């Protein structure tokens, strides 16, 4: 950790407390990450073979979102020193001096307990248990444990972001099944190439913060190779899922198109060197990052479409 980060952390910790606005606390919940959590959890809930009362479904999604937000707040509490020195995160509420670290911790812990208890009451113990484990995994295993000491932080930490569809499925069915594990696997395999593409063009941010991202520990050439390998594995898994319970012709068509595009970008990233990337301001890396967001959205929309079609007797391969 650099002196700059230590100083920033102490400034953040001594920020005036008690006068943050509503929006500052909302920003602690990482609303953009929350949209991914809400969407994938909703797909898990709606793709499940058991109907859920709309109010129960709404409550389940809301409490899963609050749980995800609580994990985000606790992540910001722990990482305020890193956030302060990274351009991308310097304006977050704690480094910006709007919310103190203690307030963020209290806010995060309270919402974490609240969301787990309420999800239990609204749905079942299994869904609440997976939500509790997700928060624990993201905050303790990933944020406090892995992120600062292993370049595989993104690979293992990606599991935390992969749990929401499994929670949604468990909220509806009370079980964990192969379908929900496949949705988990899709996000788990997607996370590394998504974040490594970001790390390539957010050049210097992770170096400054001292976070051992693959770009810092193994170099950018190795990161480019890792993106290609993980994208190939992801493509095999994503297309293969078309022939399982969550897939069907619609999903297969979507998977073929998006995996072909993602593979094209991964190959292009692998073939480039830093000189070429700098020359066009990381055009391909930025395109791959944007595509990866559409990639996940398209796959989960296709899973939802297959579930809707099966309700009409048209989904899957039957």
């Amino acid at each position: 950790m650099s002196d700059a980060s230590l100083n920033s952390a102490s400034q953040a910790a001594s920020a005036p407390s008690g006068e943050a606005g509503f929006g500052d606390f909302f920003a602690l919940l990482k609303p953009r990450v929350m949209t991914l959590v809400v969407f994938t959890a909703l797909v898990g809930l709606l793709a499940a073979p058991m109907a859920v009362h709309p109010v129960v479904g709404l409550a389940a999604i809301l409490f899963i979102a609050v749980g995800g937000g609580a994990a985000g707040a606790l992540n910001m509490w722990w990482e305020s020193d890193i956030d302060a020195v990274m351009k991308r995160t310097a304006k977050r509420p704690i480094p910006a001096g709007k919310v103190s670290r203690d307030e963020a911790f209290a806010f995060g812990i309270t919402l974490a307990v609240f969301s787990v208890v309420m999800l239990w009451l609204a749905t079942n113990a299994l869904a609440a248990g997976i939500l509790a484990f997700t928060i624990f995994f993201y905050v303790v295993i990933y944020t406090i444990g892995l992120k600062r000491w292993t370049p595989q932080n993104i690979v293992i930490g990606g599991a935390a972001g992969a749990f929401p569809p499994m929670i949604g499925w468990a909220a509806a069915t009370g079980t964990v099944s192969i379908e929900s594990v496949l949705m988990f696997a899709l996000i788990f395999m997607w996370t590394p190439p998504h974040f490594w593409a970001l790390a390539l063009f957010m050049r210097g941010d992770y170096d400054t913060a001292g976070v051992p991202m693959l770009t810092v520990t193994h170099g950018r050439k190795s990161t480019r190779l890792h993106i290609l390998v993980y994208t190939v594995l992801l493509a095999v898994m994503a297309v293969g899922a078309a022939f399982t319970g969550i897939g069907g012709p619609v999903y297969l068509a979507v998977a073929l198109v998006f995996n072909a595009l993602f593979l094209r970008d991964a190959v292009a990233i692998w073939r480039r060197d830093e000189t070429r990337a700098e020359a066009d301001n990381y055009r391909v890396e930025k395109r791959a990052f944007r595509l990866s967001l559409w990639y996940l959205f398209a796959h989960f929309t296709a899973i939802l479409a297959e579930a809707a079609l099966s309700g009409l007797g048209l989904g899957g391969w039957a």
Partner: protein
Amino acid sequence: MSFREEHELHKRRFGRNLGLGLVLAGFVALVFGLTVAKVSNDDFMVPTQQQEGK
């Protein structure tokens, strides 16, 4: 008697209180909706009173 001009801090506090109030009102409505949904479920059964000594 004249009122002092409202400080920016007061506006921020009002915004925070209003936001919290709306969130709490939404939560109450949600719990009410959940209760109605669960009670009107076909599987719902009113717990029977235990007889003394059993």
